């Protein structure tokens, strides 16, 4: 982004915090503190459910970042879930790394892989981008299914974390899931308050308009793609640190992305609260409707279609429309300074003009 | 009864109001010109009449029938044809195909492929070419011909002269009598005041979305028109 634009644009500050968002941050931190002690008091079933919730939350936040904020509808994020799983296996079992070390290492490697895949995927747009990312995920699935070093089609079992003992591994996995769940929310909030977030807002309103503001649309989208890919890989590694058994068809299954999509559509696309609400509802639905088998997925599909057409901002959007004051305010707003062109702008501190 | 009657209609782009409480009546067989500077709302008015934009408040009647609720293609079926600003010919279609698709609704009448080619002989020479390779004037002729193929009762012309050389503009305007003679009522939108005054039976002026003047060309003074046009 050019710095010269600062002279063309009236002074502004990026304002994201609202009383509600500050309250949410406080509540969130308290919640985190309480949840962090769960290994001391929670049963393993409870912790496993939370591991699932927080890893799904992280995946959904990443997909929301891609589709909801950057307009990149990927149906291939399972590529990175699978790569994260196998990355963890290679790190712990083949290289002998501690899981805590293996995860940052695999994140770095997968960032490079994502950069390479972007060369292909970014040639496509819109719905064709969606299928293109899917093909790329398929390529990884097939390649891994053929790689004897990682068990080919049968897959592998992670044993490099066995030294932690069952309780130790569960606690570590739980803390990591907690970290990645909270971390994903904080990451998205932070991104949306940064210049990248402003670029994303401009881009969502109009790509051509964003370009005319001097925003590099390609680099903005690429940054989001890389962040989301690494995010999914880290979440995938934690999921499989919990599951241990990795099979290529499951690890690279489009079901991962389907879950992300359902969660985001249900909760609310393009809002940071959406994946939180969506993940809660999604797990709730699954717990209650699991007995229906494939019918459960039919219901999910119908719900997704209905919400997309009738309530594209999801449950959270419906909720906010009714109670506007509860918004976390992670949508950054440009608060115009005193010198708006023509001098007709509001004085600072009074009724800020929402540009976003 | 007027062929077209707009009464108290407004139009919006989102929250932005482009037309305020417009009322006008165009009689059958008349040539009516709407002038106004860039951004006055002329195209918006035609798009509203054609059904591309909803009219809010008030109403639009065509031949006595309320057409507000009708989608564009139904209005075309009744005989309302728009020659849009910027011509908008179909580049994937040949010249002749552009004309044939103009007759999509199958309204019968004076105009057909042969008559349009008589009116614009150049189009006949270029019949098999892609519309994309035509010059601006030829594209404008094609856009008019495409609209005529619907045998419209009301022809809406949006800035036919836009971006064309004076000699080309004159050639196109010279065809207007022939079009009117075939019984078509014409509503012309122009920024070019002289052009509009020269051909119109009646003229009205739009200023920032409101009608600022209306009358017969002979009755209007230059000063009155300038004031209505520029808002001074």
């Amino acid at each position, binding site marked *: 982004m050019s710095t010269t634009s600062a002279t063309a644009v009236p002074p502004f500050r990026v304002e994201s915090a609202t009383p509600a968002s500050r309250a949410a941050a406080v509540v969130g931190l308290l919640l985190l503190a309480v949840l962090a002690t769960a290994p001391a008091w929670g049963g393993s079933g409870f912790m496993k459910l939370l591991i699932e919730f927080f890893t799904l939350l992280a995946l959904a936040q990443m997909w929301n970042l891609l*589709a909801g904020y950057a*307009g990149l*509808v990927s149906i291939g994020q399972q590529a990175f879930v699978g790569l994260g799983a196998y990355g963890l296996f290679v790190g712990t079992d083949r290289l002998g790394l501690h899981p805590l070390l293996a995860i940052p290492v695999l994140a770095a490697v997968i960032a490079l892989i994502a950069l390479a895949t972007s*060369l*292909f995927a970014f*040639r*496509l*747009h*819109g*719905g*064709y981008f*969606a*299928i*293109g990312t*899917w*093909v*790329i995920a*398929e*390529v990884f699935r*097939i*390649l891994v*299914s*053929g790689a004897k070093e990682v068990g080919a089609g049968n897959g592998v079992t992670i044993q490099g974390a066995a030294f932690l003992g069952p309780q130790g591994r569960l606690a570590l996995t739980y803390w990591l899931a907690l970290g990645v769940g909270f971390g994903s929310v904080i990451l998205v909030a932070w991104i949306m308050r940064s210049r990248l977030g402003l670029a994303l807002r401009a881009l969502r309103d109009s790509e051509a308009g964003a370009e005319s503001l001097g925003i590099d649309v390609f680099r903005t989208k690429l940054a989001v793609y890389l962040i989301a890919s690494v995010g999914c890989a880290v979440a995938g590694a934690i999921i499989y640190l919990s599951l241990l058994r990795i099979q290529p068809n499951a690890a690279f299954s489009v079901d991962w992305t*389907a879950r992300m*999509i359902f969660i985001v*559509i249900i909760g609310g696309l393009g809002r940071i609260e959406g994946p939180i609400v969506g993940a809660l509802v999604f797990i709730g639905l699954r717990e209650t409707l699991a007995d229906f*088998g*494939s019918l459960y*997925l*039919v219901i999910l*599909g*119908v719900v*997704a*279609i209905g919400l*997309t*057409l009738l309530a*594209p901002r999801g449950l959270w959007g419906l909720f906010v429309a009714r109670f506007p004051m509860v918004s976390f305010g992670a949508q950054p707003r440009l608060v115009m300074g005193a010198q708006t062109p023509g001098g007709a702008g509001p004085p600072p501190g009074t009724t800020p003009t929402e540009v976003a | 009864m007027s062929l077209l009657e707009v009464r108290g209609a407004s139009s919006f782009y989102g929250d932005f109001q482009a037309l305020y409480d417009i009322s006008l009546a165009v009689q059958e067989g008349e040539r009516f010109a709407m002038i106004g500077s860039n951004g006055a709302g002329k195209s918006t008015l035609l798009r509203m009449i054609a*059904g*591309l934009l909803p009219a809010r408040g008030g109403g639009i009647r065509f031949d006595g029938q309320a057409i507000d609720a009708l*989608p*564009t*293609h139904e209005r*075309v*079926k009744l005989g309302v*044809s*728009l020659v*849009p600003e910027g011509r*908008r010919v*179909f*580049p*994937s*279609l040949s010249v002749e*195909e552009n004309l*044939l*698709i103009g007759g*999509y*609704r199958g309204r019968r009448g004076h105009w057909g492929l042969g008559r349009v080619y008589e009116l614009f002989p150049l189009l006949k020479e270029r019949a098999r070419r*892609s519309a*994309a390779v035509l010059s601006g004037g030829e594209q404008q002729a094609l856009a008019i011909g495409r609209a005529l193929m*619907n045998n419209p009762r009301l022809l809406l012309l949006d800035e036919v002269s836009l971006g064309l050389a004076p000699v080309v503009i004159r050639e196109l305007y010279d065809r207007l009598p022939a079009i009117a003679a075939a019984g078509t009522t014409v509503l012309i939108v122009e920024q070019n005041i002289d052009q509009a005054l020269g051909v119109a039976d009646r003229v009205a002026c739009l200023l920032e979305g409101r009608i600022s003047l209306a009358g017969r060309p002979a009755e209007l003074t230059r000063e009155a028109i300038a004031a209505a046009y520029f808002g001074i």
Partner: protein
Amino acid sequence: MEWVNAVIQGTLLGGLYALLATGLSLAFGVMRLVNLAHGDLNILAAYLALVVVTATGANPLVGLVAVVPVMMVIGFLLQRVLLNFALGGGVLPPVLVTFGIAVVVQNVLLDVFSADSQGLDAGPLENASVTLTDQISVGFFPLLTLLVAVGVLLGLQFVVSRTQLGRALRATSDDTEAARIVGIDHRRLYSIAMAISLGTVAVAGVFLGIRTTFGPSDGPQRLIFAFESVIIGGLGSLWGTLVGGVALGVAQAVGNQVNPAYQALAGHLLFLAVLAFRPSGLFARRTARQV
């Protein structure tokens, strides 16, 4: 000789991929809709044929007479009651809605027909072959498949280039608003386009169903093959799509020859190579885009 055979088999299969691809690119060309349920609707057509065959004992090829119109009606209605409402609001709604449809179709099929693989039996036709040299013989059925595919493509080409419907499709693809100005009901036209799209999908579905077994979860793969053919051939050209389909078919056959596990992979790699080195496709038209 095995290789020559592989290439011939791939070419014959490619016709079906081209049919699949045509439906996908027709919807994209006319209404900028990328139908993620394309593959699952293709599988649905095969199951419909299975139902017809089971109920009447007819040859699946005869069953086409029922399956194609039914799929066309499904396409028309799907567009009319659902997809038209997803258009005009950016890229997300159509992708999400068609993804939802894909999930629904897949799981309804799973519910009704179970996960077991099914096949369509076209009788002795399937084993007949035409001997070219003493080492190369071409199955009669694959040959018929290619001929039918080319026939359908020719028919479509005729409709698109010679009829008022085709002109309307191209005009709408060029400029929807200008199309409305000439009196085209674009929503209705979209529904017709989707009907045609699913009609071709139905033909491809029945032929593929005779050729290979199918299950409720095979849709995504079909979608991907269709998509790869479109991109390899070059967006929006009917004959480019045929080239794309054949190229994909040949790549897969060759991959299969190397190692049966790599059949699909070879196609994916060809697709990625085209994307990297010739993103406009092997056969892209430079000017006048066609639907």
